[in-house]
């Protein structure tokens, strides 16, 4: 993939790529008496693919929201690409992107129009060329003039993923990106994520309830339970620690028996 120059990229990019792409220190979020995230600390190296997993209510989405700066932590701090998120959110967001099954795009716009809006929003230097490139990447060329209403859920998910690749992000946050994709496109998406990491050194933080996918794709996993990290290591090491054959079994063990 060709590097994408945004209008402001030169001004905001750190001169040396930091070895740690994402760092959360003692991150805590309380909603009244409820502690959604409880003193969570982790580091993600540049170019690493890390899976965030845990049962519903474990704190995955809360952590993702805090990493994107759409939710303020009660305490703790976040550094992304060597910059403090609280002070440099705009500069960071130029180099980050996000896609979620639970967030959509305006269905009254065509695929191309939607992507053009975001290409302009990220201030890409050659928006038309970049939109063509990501449409090709996600096999959306034939759908360029289709309105969102005419797309299947899976096709709309591909448009959202294409949006997430528009600015050639150095850090990519993906919230269950393959949940509504058929096995073929889901497999292509995983391959694309691996290639993106290998060629561009993109750092990826990934949530999914597809445990096989997590084992296959992630260099490391962060296992959350009730707002705390209960395990953080390679999938193999985590499985060895709990004596389980696969992440599916480990997930059930944690969710049903509350093993920590």
């Amino acid at each position, binding site marked *: 993939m060709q590097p994408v120059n945004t209008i402001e990229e030169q001004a905001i990019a750190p001169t040396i790529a930091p070895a740690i792409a994402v760092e959360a220190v003692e991150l805590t979020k309380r909603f009244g008496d409820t502690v959604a995230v409880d003193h969570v600390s982790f580091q993600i190296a540049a170019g690493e693919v890390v899976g965030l997993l845990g049962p519903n209510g474990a704190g995955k989405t809360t952590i993702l929201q805090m990493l994107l700066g*759409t939710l303020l932590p009660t305490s703790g701090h976040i550094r992304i690409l060597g910059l403090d998120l609280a002070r440099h959110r705009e*500069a960071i967001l130029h180099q980050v992107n996000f896609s979620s099954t639970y967030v959509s795009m305006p*269905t009254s716009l065509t695929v191309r129009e939607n992507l053009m809006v*975001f290409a*302009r929003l*990220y201030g890409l230097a050659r928006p038309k060329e970049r939109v063509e490139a990501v449409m090709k990447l996600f096999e959306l060329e034939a759908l360029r003039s289709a309105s969102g209403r005419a797309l299947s859920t899976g096709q709309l998910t591909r448009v959202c993923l294409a949006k997430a690749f528009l600015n050639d992000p150095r850090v990519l946050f993906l919230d269950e990106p393959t949940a509504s994709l058929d096995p073929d496109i889901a497999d292509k998406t995983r391959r694309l994520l691996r290639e993106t990491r290998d060629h561009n050194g993109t750092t990826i933080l990934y949530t999914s309830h597809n445990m096989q996918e997590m084992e296959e794709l992630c260099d490391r996993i962060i296992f959350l339970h009730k707002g705390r990290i209960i395990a953080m290591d390679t999938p193999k090491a985590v499985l060895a620690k709990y004596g389980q054959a696969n992440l599916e079994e480990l997930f059930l063990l944690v969710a049903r028996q509350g093993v920590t």
Partner: protein
Amino acid sequence: MKWYRVWAIFTRHFYLYKRSPARWMAIFYWPLIDLFVWGFITIYLQQYLSSFVMAFLGALILWDILFRSQQGISITFLEEVWSRNLLNLFVAPLRPIEFLTASMLMGFFMVTVSTLASALLAWLFYSFNLLTLGLSLLPFILNLVAMGWAIGVVTTAIILRYGQKAEVLAWGLTFFFQPISAVFYPVEVLPAWLQPVARAVPATHVFQGMRQVMRDGTFPLGELLAATALNGIYLAVAFAFFYWIFGQVKELGLLMKVGE
């Protein structure tokens, strides 16, 4: 503030109008229905009252400017809520002020189109020339647009905080000001205790000014200055309110939930 991001949001909403007859209808329908109903009532009344009842037509067109301006902002925001796109926008490097500016421009666009249509039809059907009010009309129109912006920004903030259950405000909040804005009758008609309240509304000075121009042909500088000063205060309060609410929304993590 980056204008390319303002342009991105503006074009995102302009795309909607490119091939949506329903949206064009929304711009034209109510102003034209009002214009016909009140226009013919005015013709009827003109037989019995002096010609200044034509002020009704002027008031009607000017009131619609205020309403369309507010709607432009509120509907632009609601479009993002309805399409579950809000999070995509705010995880991009988009500042709230840029989003609001694009919404205000969209409001201005809607006002321009609908006012031109109304003014043309008023001239064709009733020989009422809005331009007879002179060039002094322009700053008064801008004041109505500004007040519409202020109400639109407050409406947007409330919907952002309380979700779609507050959507009714997008359609009705401007009308809360109608009885005390001296739209169809002079402020002196109101009870004495209500008159100071009415004079604290920028639109009141616009409509009082319009009547002054039609009555004695003098330029209502005092009314213009009062409207402009009040709008300065209204806009400052509206933006401060929006930023205060936006802080709460980030504290509570509502950006992801606002469309639910």
